[in-house]
């Protein structure tokens, strides 16, 4: 064994050290791949693993919760408190406030601070909030409306004043005490003050309960629900977290898969590196074989070489991934907040399992990629030890056979793309993308040779450098194909995602044309989020409506519900059909007016496309919604396209909603300006009317602009992943060209003998890079187009339920591709310099 280890070291590992640059590139490729995978994994957990994290940590000692759309009537608290069971109850107001000074959003929690003393007793431990009123001088202002207890994370001192925006009002509060919030900044108020601050008296947002252990939580939930009005949702605490997690699963899953692209590209490079090693060391392999090494040992040696690259790469990749995770978590957090649920990203936790997985993935990919060339090495016969003169190993490339397989795979991809989702996941869609990539990779040798041959006359005309470059690429067709394959895969994924995102973007912009018809939109100040619906004081809407130049004000009120275990937004709007109202596109194709008329007159709703997709319902079906204290049935009058959120959306007329939830406060206002009125004047009037309220007023253009900004932020991370994959591929090109230069030293030297200038040599290498880049970009574009169809019509549809219309994002794509092309050529400058500086006398006479 030691003998073998020595052999392994001398023949296989030692030569590695002679090419630090090329190996360095391979290691970096693995490192980047591992880092990206790890970063997305860590960031995913951090960004999506902790919703309402402050609220949930403050609820950690309860196992049951009672909620209701629009709040739980507070009498329910009394009802539960007097039941003959040993429950611990904690009624709460839960919302957010914005600290005026820092514009930071913090959780605002209204607790029954008197009752918390009971919990203290039963818990026989500190109040879970850290006892906000410890040591307080309670004689003055304990129950005052401006009393708050600030989490230590807010950096306020006892007795200080803090200005907070709550809903659409800004008020000054006094810090009565500071408690250790364990990095989850929150503000605690007494429940009475909180209700008033939030304008929600007579309702509490949630009742947390701890039920006795005697029976399980679900059966308690059932028993309690049977006593309460039908609109009450009684469920285990954490259900919504679980639901959110489920909702986010598709998002995380897609990102995770995307994160593997860089690794796949890295695999191509490992394959290439090991292939080069095998070709270079044929003689050494032959000697080793002649000295008694068996095939398995040779195989092991090269697989071991790859594993070594994998280990080093992973070792660099893990800390790199941890660093990248910090950036990724921000980007992902933006997406999560914009599309799914408001949450503060949790801490990034580099767990043992994640590290182990990352390392295993790094090594695994390296070993798998190296297997084929290593097997080839094992086939070397001892006789080849003597074949010193044989400089080039002519690799057989089965162009035709590979191309045939590619066609079969493409067919399989087509069939796979047609298959339905499996358990909500587009597994066959992913499989189809893999098949397309595999097919593309296998078709590349045939494509490369056909294209180069076809263009040989043109190439010759463009100079001797181009001719030599093209011949050189053809001469090492396998190597060329691997490189083109790696770069093409990266380009393809980038193109595919680029087309998908671009199509999505244009679809959203076009959709907004119809959906955003009003001149001004108003919402409470504070950071927007999809699952919170702070309200505007009802009188403000009336004020606006009375302004001269305002034709109409539409009020929209939204609530959060859990429909069928999926977080859903339910909204009500004035559907009285203003002349200027935009044309919402409905699936049935009916005119908006007809649909809206139906909503006004009956218990009907319209639902968003993602809703139908998530719940398997369609137009004409009946759904039951928990509204206020009731459970009411609604007919789905129609389905509309909605790209605003991935969550399901149910929309009804405001008059219908008010039957169940008679709360007049709107979440949003749409203001229509009278024809002929000056919108700027009207805006000034609106701002004047709203001067005592903290609301944001958006013009139509502003709103669209903001929506697109959010959209772009949302996809920032996808672009970042693409960029890394492309970077890895370009590094691969640099590394491979370097190898090519080293392998062709003799030929390069000869050219100098034959009268080539150094510049000509450099031009030749650059031409090779340009050719590679060109081929890869063209192949990548074609492949990317195919992939984009799968992404748009299969994966996206099955994951999220959006109907995206196909568009070519010409500007973005041509920009990106030019950039990649330029980068590829730039990557060749170093190998080209090496080539130029070779001493022709030495290299030609060396052997």
């Amino acid at each position: 064994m030691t003998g073998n280890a020595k052999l392994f070291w001398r023949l296989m590992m030692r030569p590695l050290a002679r090419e630090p640059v090329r190996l360095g590139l391979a290691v970096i490729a693995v490192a980047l791949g591992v880092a990206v995978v790890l970063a997305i994994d860590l960031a995913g957990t951090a960004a999506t693993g902790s919703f309402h994290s402050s609220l949930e940590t403050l609820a950690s000692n309860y196992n049951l919760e009672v909620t209701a759309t629009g709040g739980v009537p507070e009498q329910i608290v009394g009802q539960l408190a007097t039941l003959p069971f040993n429950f611990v109850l904690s009624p709460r107001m839960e919302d957010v406030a914005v600290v005026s000074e820092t514009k930071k959003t913090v959780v605002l929690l209204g607790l029954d601070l008197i009752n918390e003393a009971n919990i203290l007793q039963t818990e026989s431990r500190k109040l879970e909030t850290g006892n906000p009123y410890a040591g307080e001088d309670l004689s003055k202002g304990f129950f005052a409306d401006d009393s708050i207890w600030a989490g230590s994370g807010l950096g306020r001192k006892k007795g200080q004043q803090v200005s907070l925006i709550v809903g659409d009002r800004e008020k000054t509060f006094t810090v009565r005490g500071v408690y250790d919030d364990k990095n989850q900044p929150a503000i605690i108020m007494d429940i009475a003050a909180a209700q008033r601050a939030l304008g929600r008296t007579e309702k509490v947002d949630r009742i947390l309960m701890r039920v006795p252990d005697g029976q399980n939580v679900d059966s308690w939930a059932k028993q309690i629900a049977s006593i309460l009005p039908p609109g009450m949702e009684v469920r285990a605490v954490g259900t919504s977290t679980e639901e959110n997690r489920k909702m986010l699963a598709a998002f995380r899953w897609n990102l995770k898969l995307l994160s593997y692209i860089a690794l796949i590209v890295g695999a191509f490079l490992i394959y290439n590196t090991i292939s080069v090693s095998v070709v270079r060391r044929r003689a050494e392999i032959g000697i080793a074989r002649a000295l008694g090494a068996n095939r398995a040992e040779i195989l092991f040696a090269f697989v071991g070489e790859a594993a070594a690259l994998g280990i080093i790469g992973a070792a660099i990749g893990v800390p790199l991934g941890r660093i990248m995770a910090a950036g990724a978590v921000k980007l992902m957090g933006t997406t999560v907040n914009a599309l799914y649920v408001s949450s503060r990203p949790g801490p990034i936790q580099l767990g043992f399992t994640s590290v182990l997985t990352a390392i295993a993935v790094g090594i695994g990919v390296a070993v798998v990629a190296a297997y084929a060339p290593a097997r080839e090495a094992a086939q070397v016969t001892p006789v080849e030890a003597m074949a010193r003169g044989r400089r080039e190993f002519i690799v057989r490339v089965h162009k035709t056979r590979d191309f045939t397989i590619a066609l079969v795979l493409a067919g399989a991809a087509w069939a796979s793309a047609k298959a339905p989702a499996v358990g909500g996941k587009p597994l066959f869609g992913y499989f189809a993308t893999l098949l397309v990539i595999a097919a593309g990779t296998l078709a590349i040798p045939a494509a490369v040779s056909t294209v180069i041959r076809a263009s040989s006359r043109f190439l010759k005309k463009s100079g001797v450098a181009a001719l030599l470059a093209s011949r050189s690429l053809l001469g090492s067709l396998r190597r060329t194909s691997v490189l083109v394959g790696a770069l093409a895969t990266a380009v393809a994924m980038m193109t595919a995602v680029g087309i998908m995102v671009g199509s999505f973007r244009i679809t959203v912009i076009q959709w907004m044309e119809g959906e955003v018809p009003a001149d001004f939109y108003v919402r409470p100040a504070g950071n927007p989020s999809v699952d919170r619906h702070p309200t505007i004081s009802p009188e403000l809407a009336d004020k606006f409506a009375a302004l001269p130049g305002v034709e109409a004000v539409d009020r929209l009120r939204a609530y959060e519900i859990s429909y069928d275990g999926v977080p859903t937004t339910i909204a009500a709007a004035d559907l009285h059909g203003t002349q200027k109202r935009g044309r919402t596109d409905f699936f049935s194709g009916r005119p908006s007016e007809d649909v809206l008329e139906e909503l006004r007159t009956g218990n009907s709703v319209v639902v968003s496309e993602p809703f139908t997709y998530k719940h398997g319902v369609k137009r004409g079906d009946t759904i039951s919604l928990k509204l206020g204290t009731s459970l009411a049935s609604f007919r789905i009058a129609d389905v509309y396209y909605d790209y605003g959120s991935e969550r399901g959306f149910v929309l009804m007329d405001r008059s219908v909603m008010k039957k169940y939830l008679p709360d007049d406060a709107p979440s949003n206002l749409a203001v229509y300006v009278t024809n002929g009125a000056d919108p700027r004047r009207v805006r000034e009037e609106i701002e004047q009317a709203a001067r005592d309220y903290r609301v944001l007023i958006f013009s139509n253009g502003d709103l669209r602009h903001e929506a697109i900004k959010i959209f772009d932020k949302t996809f920032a991370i996808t672009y970042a992943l693409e960029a890394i994959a492309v970077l890895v591929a370009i590094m691969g090109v640099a590394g491979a060209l370097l190898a090519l230069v080293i392998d062709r030293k003799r030929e390069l030297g000869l050219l100098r003998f034959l009268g080539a200038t150094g510049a000509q040599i450099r031009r030749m290498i650059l031409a090779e890079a340009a050719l590679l880049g060109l081929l890869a970009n063209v192949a990548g574009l074609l492949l990317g187009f195919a992939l984009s169809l799968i992404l748009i019509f299969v994966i996206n549809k099955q994951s999220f339920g959006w109907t995206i219309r196909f568009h070519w994002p010409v500007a973005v794509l041509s920009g990106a591709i030019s950039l990649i092309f330029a980068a590829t050529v730039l990557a060749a400058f170093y190998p080209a310099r090496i080539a130029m500086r070779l001493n022709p006398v030495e290299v030609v006479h060396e052997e």
Partner: protein
Amino acid sequence: MRNRAFCAAFLFATFPMLDVPYRVALPGYRYEFPRDFFAHSSFQTEWWYTTGNVKTPDGRAFGFELTFFRQAVSRDESKHDAWDVKDLYLAHLALSDLDGGRFYQSERVNRTGPGIAGVSAQDGKVWNGNWFALWSKDGTQQLRAQNDDFQFAFSLKSEKLPVIHGENGISQKSEGVGRASHYFSQTRLVTNGTIELKGKRHTVSGLSWMDHEFFTHQLAADQVGWDWFSIQLEDGTELMFFILRRRDGSIDPYSAGTYVDASGKSTHLSAADFSLTPEGAVWKSTATGTTYPIQWRLVVPKLDVALEARTRLPQQELMGGTRLAPSYWEGAVEFTGLRANTSLRGSGYLEMTGYNHPIQLIK
């Protein structure tokens, strides 16, 4: 430990005493039942205090206590939402397993809130969460409470009319107008019901006593605590005494008592009419470090009564987990002695406060 500090502060400092002048107990108050069973919101402090001694048919003895306190905090008219704190409701619950040698107790505090605690004359109910006393039209009273250790449900039927303590409708506690309470008791409540302790159900019967007192700021600054006795004697008579202890260790002359004869007629006893002295056994609480005299001698020359009070369970100390109320001893006691040279037995409850800290607010 910060919690405890807080809770002490809570008790002593929360309630702005003088922001609204509450009504004080003045002579000439006219009682009216059932109205006076329920809340008197214009007074700052009020309590309903039921204690009793019950036994199973096979003789296993239990003592119990269920107490509801109401403490007015604010009478701010501008605040009228359900959660606004006008009154705080504290409640104590205890069960003395006299044969099992265990004492169980718990405590809770709530605001009125949306029906969490309160007093309703309309519903005939005084409650704090799921602990309640409920009067039915016929005058019987249902008493129910539970905690993690036990629960009980009693039906209480009074054999006598409510007894009003003191003179002229007030029970004077110290020198000064209004330093008094309105105080009445139901001294002989025949009690039937069940106790479920650690999953085991016991059918019990016995006698209970209910005190109801309401006042505003009754004690004087130098009064540090009191000892209170309820005595239900086998001959159908009852006695109630309280002695107010001063900071200097002397007995306040405003200490007093009431004698209720078998027909229900009551006689006021002033401090000069009786002597109550700790005698013999003391018990030191390991939890609070407080020492309580748990054996007393009572002599009422006027009635020719001499009694010895002892308890079978020394550790009947209530220590609030919330620390919203100070610790005190309240437990089932037995009386033996002589009346006109005839031996006499009885049972009742003894409450001793201010042994830990001077009592300032509640009793």
